[in-house]
């Protein structure tokens, strides 16, 4: 029972982190109609910028400044890169963001090297807040949860209750009509792109100390973020939340419970083969849940795409 609680909290931390990335990505998708492959790279940039700032000014200024810098960089890339490629069609756009992801990884390696950089949580938050059984829960984890929930509430409020949010929502669905009403739609798109990348940057700032800040961090999370928004339904904020939490808990549970395939097979009534090393199906017998944990999200995505291409909450075709 205690273990379940701990896993629930760990999964929540991971899921909310995914949500901070996928919420921005899903907004950007509903706006441009194209998936931004470089989204996780902005997450990495956020972590590295925060690390650089924290070396001179400490953790807290980095928490504010790094996402802003990332957001400005993102807006600039939309303005001077993506908008230019947009005229060639969707596939070149997707390929552009793919190339951008490669380039950002190389640039990060250029400036900060290939090894992990020592970016740590602030000392104020380095203590065990409470413990469940023998498992201590770090204060920083609770801080991560708090920040993510706060961001989600802010996003929900801005998008549904304010005038700016209304204009954005209208611009996503009927850009031409909104333009005819006198709003600067390209500017709105640039702003949404900037805010989306800033959110990814913020996720990087708070995840860097927990998951490590190294050049591979974008690649590690990048494809999972896509999987998340595809499962949740492209363009749906609630879908992104549900799918993030689902994936967070699913992978954490799979990593923590050592269920072996051999036990299941024997429970069903199969006989364990004597000569395991030569058996043709030996890999099925030695399979364990932690082994297949990392590929569960991809499996889920393929199944969902085959049977329900809209995703869980999506309204439009991907």
């Amino acid at each position, binding site marked *: 029972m205690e273990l379940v609680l701990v896993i629930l909290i760990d999964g929540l931390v991971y899921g909310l982190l995914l949500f901070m990335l996928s919420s921005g990505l899903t907004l950007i998708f509903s706006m441009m109609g*194209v*998936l931004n492959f470089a989204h996780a790279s902005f997450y990495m940039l956020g972590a590295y910028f925060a690390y650089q700032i924290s070396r001179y000014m400490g953790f807290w200024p980095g928490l504010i400044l790094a996402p802003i810098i990332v957001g400005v960089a993102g807006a600039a890339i939309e303005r001077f*890169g993506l908008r*230019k*490629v947009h005229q*060639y069609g*969707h*596939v*070149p756009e*997707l*390929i*552009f963001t*793919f*190339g*951008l992801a*490669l*380039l950002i*990884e*190389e*640039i990060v*390696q*250029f*400036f900060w*090297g290939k090894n992990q950089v020592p970016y740590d949580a602030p000392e104020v938050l380095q203590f065990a807040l409470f413990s469940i059984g023998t498992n201590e829960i770090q204060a920083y984890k609770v801080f991560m949860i708090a920040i993510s929930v706060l961001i989600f509430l802010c996003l929900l409020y801005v998008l549904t209750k304010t005038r700016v949010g209304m204009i954005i929502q209208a611009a996503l669905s009927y850009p031409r009509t909104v333009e005819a009403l006198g709003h600067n739609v390209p500017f709105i798109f640039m702003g949404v792109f900037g805010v989306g990348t800033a959110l990814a940057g913020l996720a990087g700032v708070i995840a860097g100390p927990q998951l490590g800040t190294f050049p591979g961090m974008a*690649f590690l999370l990048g*494809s999972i973020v*896509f*999987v998340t928004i*595809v499962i949740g339904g*492209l363009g749906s904020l609630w879908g992104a939340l549900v799918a993030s939490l689902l994936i967070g808990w699913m992978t954490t549970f799979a990593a923590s419970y050592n269920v072996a395939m051999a036990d299941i097979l024997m429970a069903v009534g199969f006989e364990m083969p004597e000569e395991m090393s030569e058996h*043709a*199906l*030996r*890999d099925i017998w030695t*399979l364990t849940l932690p*082994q*297949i944990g*990392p*590929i569960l999200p*991809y*499996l889920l*995505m*393929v199944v969902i*795409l*085959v049977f329900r*291409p809209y995703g869980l909450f999506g309204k439009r*075709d*991907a």
Partner: protein
Amino acid sequence: MTDTSSIMAKKRSYGGLSTGTVAPWVICTAILLVLPYVFQSNSALTIMNQMAITIVFALAYNMLLGQGGMLSFGHAVYMGMGGFMCMHVMNWVEYENIPLPLPLLPVIGGLFGMGMATIIGSFSTRTAGTVFAMISLGIGELIAASSVIVVAFFGGEEGVSGDRTYGLPVFGYEFLTKIEVYYLTAGWLVLSALLMYLFSRTPVGRMANAVRDNPERAQFLGYSARWVRFYSFCASGFFAGVAGGLFAINFEILTEENLNLVTSGSILLITFLGGVGFFFGPIIGAIVFTLLQSVLSLQTELWQLYVGALFVLTVMYFPGGLAGVLMMHVVPYKLGKLGTLVVPYIKTLIPAAIGILGLASFCELMFHFKHAAVGEHDMSLFGIEFSTHSPIPWIVIIGLTVIGFWLAKRSSAELRETWGNANVMTSSKEGGAQ
């Protein structure tokens, strides 16, 4: 409908056999035959083998991306699976004495790749666009991850290895030397490139283009967009598998690296760099990329940065790729105005090259300054030795960069104007009459 289409088909096949279409194939085959006599070193042969395999793979990939309009993020799966199967067959030939000559091995890889593509394509080709891209990404990650789990087939971390020389000798050749393998690979390259070209001329290949451009309209004509995509996908899987078989023969080992997202991503990069709009685009892309990879990576640690920058700039400014840039010159050539472009090109490209080299040197200098071992201040660029801690190299390099780009920018206006003139039928009389 059958009457007209058969007449059309006849016309096309007769029209296809002109000297204009046959000549490039003959010339390329001749070049492939002669190349080992020009570049005789062992490393050159390795690079050429690598290049040939990449060309086959890139052409197979372009059957999807360029001709079918399907963006795949997991095409390494079909090459890798074909390769792994070939590795196993190679080992069976060795231990069970199956009479299978080595040159036929890629067929098995191809059939296995096609089998995989048939299974996965049966559900992934229902739509093109983002759904297809995402399914291919998911499948790619799944297979790459299972390569560590399913040890029986993928060999786990160390992969599957074998020995190509234990098979049956073919006409006395046992494929012990690199040169024999080169001719085997080159033969398969020509054969599969020719088959892929011919596939693009068949009605299915033509319909793939139509479905790419306007699936709705193709369906109104009575074709199922889904089946057309499925056929292209299977054919592409076959040739990717052939490439995998060639890889198995050349390197005699396949690992998880042959299946993962990095390989899938780099084939996308190669194909797009070469140009997806033309059949020969991926060939150029594969040649340029392999050269960059093998030559540039010896010279500098930063080669991936340069390749990444080149890729992004290509997408932004030349979405047609290198082949597109080449083909842009067909109109001026036909108008007989290619000569007028030479001088402006020299005036713009030489300063631009200086500027780019200056920028690259600046990157190298900064990289050395930041990451070199403590106390190591000396570095050499283009054969010149200097210290990174004196201001002179910095000033020289920044100066060269700025001057190069400034000169290039200044003369680019002239280039643009000449380019505009070279692409229109000028005759001042006609212009005046209007």
